[in-house]
């Protein structure tokens, strides 16, 4: 067991983790940030995607101890002062959500794409979420939502 401390959604958070504890389980079970989901635990569905030091990562593929001292952003960190992030607004408006299970991972992959401030092409949008599976929506509205949010990204 090690005590680790990291910045999550702008706040310093710490907790105990075994060396084998996955980041996704540390976030969900220890920090109780349950917006990040688990769909396969082997890096194939993207439901667990978070930002780690400025880049999107599948948090089931990272050990919690690797993130000691680092910066992590989860879906809970997207809205600011109760105002939805443009990506969240766009997902809502474009009906990019059905059951909502893949949604946090989709949002974080899209957030990673849009963070560099450039307007992505259709192909770049698809590439950014190609590791995120959604069984409900058929992806079309998700792509449309990311395209829309790209115009309003701050």
């Amino acid at each position, binding site marked *: 067991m090690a005590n680790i401390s990291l910045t999550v959604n702008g706040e310093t958070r710490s907790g105990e983790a075994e060396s084998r504890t996955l980041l996704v389980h540390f976030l969900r079970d220890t920090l109780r940030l*349950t917006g990040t*989901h688990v769909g396969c635990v082997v890096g194939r569905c993207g439901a667990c995607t978070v930002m780690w030091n400025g880049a999107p990562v599948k948090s089931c593929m990272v050990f919690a101890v690797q993130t000691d001292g680092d910066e992590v952003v*989860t879906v*809970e960190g997207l809205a600011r002062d109760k105002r*939805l992030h443009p990506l969240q607004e766009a997902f809502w408006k474009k*009906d990019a959500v*059905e*059951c909502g299970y893949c949604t946090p991972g989709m949002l974080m992959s899209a957030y990673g794409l849009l963070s560099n401030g450039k307007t992505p092409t259709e192909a770049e949008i698809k590439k950014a979420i190609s*590791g995120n599976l959604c069984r409900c929506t058929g992806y079309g*509205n998700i792509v449309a939502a990311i395209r829309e949010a790209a115009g309003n990204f701050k």
Partner: protein
Amino acid sequence: MDFPINPPIGERVRRKETQRFVTGTGRFVDDLLPPGTLHASFTRSPCAHARINSVDASAALTMPGVRAVFTGKDIADRIKPMRVGGSPLLRPLKLYPLAVDKIRYFGEPVAVVVADNRYLAEDAVEAIAIDYEPLPAVIDPEAALEPGATPVHDVLGGNKVYKFHFATDGIDEIFAKADVVVKERIRSHRITACPIEPRAYLAHYSPDEDSLTMWSATANPHSLRGRIADVINFPEGKIRVIAPDVGGSFGVKIQTYQEELLLPFISRELGRPIKWCETRVEHMRNGRHGRDQIHYIEMALKKDGTILGLRDRIIADMGSTYTVDHSIMASALYMTGVYQIQNYAVDATGVSTNKTTHGSLRGIGKADAAYVIERLVDIAARKLNIDPIDIRMKNFIPAESFPYRNVTGALYDSGQYHLCLKRTAEIAGYEKLKQEQAELRKKGICRGIGVALVMEPTSSSRIHATGGYASCRMRIDPSGAATVFSSMGEQGQGHETTIAQIVASQTGIPFEKITVIHGDTLPTPYGFGTGSSRSSVVLMPSAWVAAKKMREKLVGIGARLIGVPPERLEIGDGKVFAKEKRDQAIAIAEIIRTAYGAIHLLPENMEPGLETMGTFVNPNIDYAPDDKGRMNTFSSYPYAGVIAVVDVDVETGFINIVRYCTVHDCGNMINPQIVDTQQQGSIMQGIGAALYEELRYDEEGRLLSSTFMDYRLPCVEEVPELALEHIVTPNPFTPLGAKGAGETGMLGPPPALCNAVEDALAPLGVKIRETPLTPDRILDLIEKAKSSHG
């Protein structure tokens, strides 16, 4: 109709539930962690068929954090067996949540460890020693029927577990006299639903209150409650089942599973909350599988393409611990599809094998039927050299024949098949496509055009299985907000929005002030699970009935207060007002205050308060066959025309969907946005089924596709250009005229894409009778065609 369908019914209202999902504040079972929760992990069989000689858990029990281990023997005399099937045609079995003396499929749960956290529980699973004595695995359903085949269930002696027969008179003469008979063996391969949230359960028995709360990612909370009561022998009244947010089901979560019955038992034993969240590998091996039917089918036709009769023999692989027969029945009863075929015979056999249990999957049985008939019609067209659209147009049930009684007694509510396919051909530019195809062929590009018109019966009613009705109870609070309690859970369908639309449109309560509660057996009325696309066919009408009663009450009170007869009143703008004289009005808020607080002003005999209950029963259902074996078990019949355009790369075997055009008729739409999104997802699931997904077993019965690496769901890169349109033919037997929209999308791609690929490769003589259409299979077929022609 005495009750108007006002906006926001029919509007593309934003979904209420989406807000919590985009902020990460949805609540799924795995998000819950009551203090003191212990975690379960299962030991699962590494083989498909074996006797269990012994299970030794002594080492596991000494491992850190382990609280208990249970084996099949430990529980067999302490809990009752699970119920199997609701159909008298299914052979009954006794099954326990953990295998007792015999293993019947790869991955079957054999023992369960309960520990302080999931890591420790998984560690201890590794330490359980089990001695298996392997038996021959029964994998091929046809071989399973041979005399001398090893029985999967010793008590049954053989593997034939279900039998259904239906035949009209004189079918053999029709085939004897026909100009042409087309005869094929077509197989629909084994797939599974794969929601992104696997199954997850949390059972919490409270010793202080002697009550049990079960949180389950189920699509069927009320039925689950009864089954838990049965199996663990605990009063149903002390059990509360809650399905919180559920991350998709597509059928797979509507059935009751071993783990779901075992966790409540363990929680009661230990007096602690017990949680188990399935891994993806476990889900692939234990979640219900679907399809997997072999059809020996023959069609008799005239030279001009008129279909005279159809004859089918179905062998359905039901896996080991089969529980329902819906798939075989739906296939057998709807094989004639959208065509006027009144001569039909079918022999359907359900077979037990050493595979995972067969069960519900989006389009259960109906998808197999639509696939096989739409393939066969195409094969016949090619043989007779008739255009695939022409042969369909020639045989479709005409619009003026509805409601149409099909040969097996099914009553199709409504349809405009000719119009639908005509419109599909228009949006696809069919004639131009054919010209382009001819030109591309000259350049060596294998382009194919695939046509299909798939019909999907919805809202089934089977005795003791799917009910056939749904209910909503509603209340307007003194504050003026309304709450609706729905009998059905939801797994992404958007009921919180569509029910609120219905209630808002009828009662004048603003959409924003309406909350919908679902998936909790304590406050909601009893009802059956979300499946068979029945929400819009029975649940939404039940909300409409509850709202109608509420409206009558509001208007009745308003009438009394302003002295105008109810027939002359209307609801709108937060008021009840006289139609001809709008200033004769009273605020709904005032009516609500009166209903609760000034009851001396209520009309005579009206109960105080504002609570109503609405129930809607599936129309036109038969619960027993007539003397010829005919019956109608579904109440609505949506359908979709499809034209798919593909290019096949003969070097790599890769299929590129150039365009997928579809025209869908699901009747009236309560929220067209929700229908569109759901349909896109449904189509992608169908594309996955046609091109990528397959559950494959090796000869020993080990599942080879247990992860997302080898069971490949379509990702965003595989979305083709889609053209979606609707035509609207309302169901005349339901108040909202909706037909159900969840499954038709998935039915289209398998036949349309197979037809398209066969068309693309027709110059090479390639025939497609097995799926999915993976590059390997395509290359193989091209190779075979070459050598047989060469």
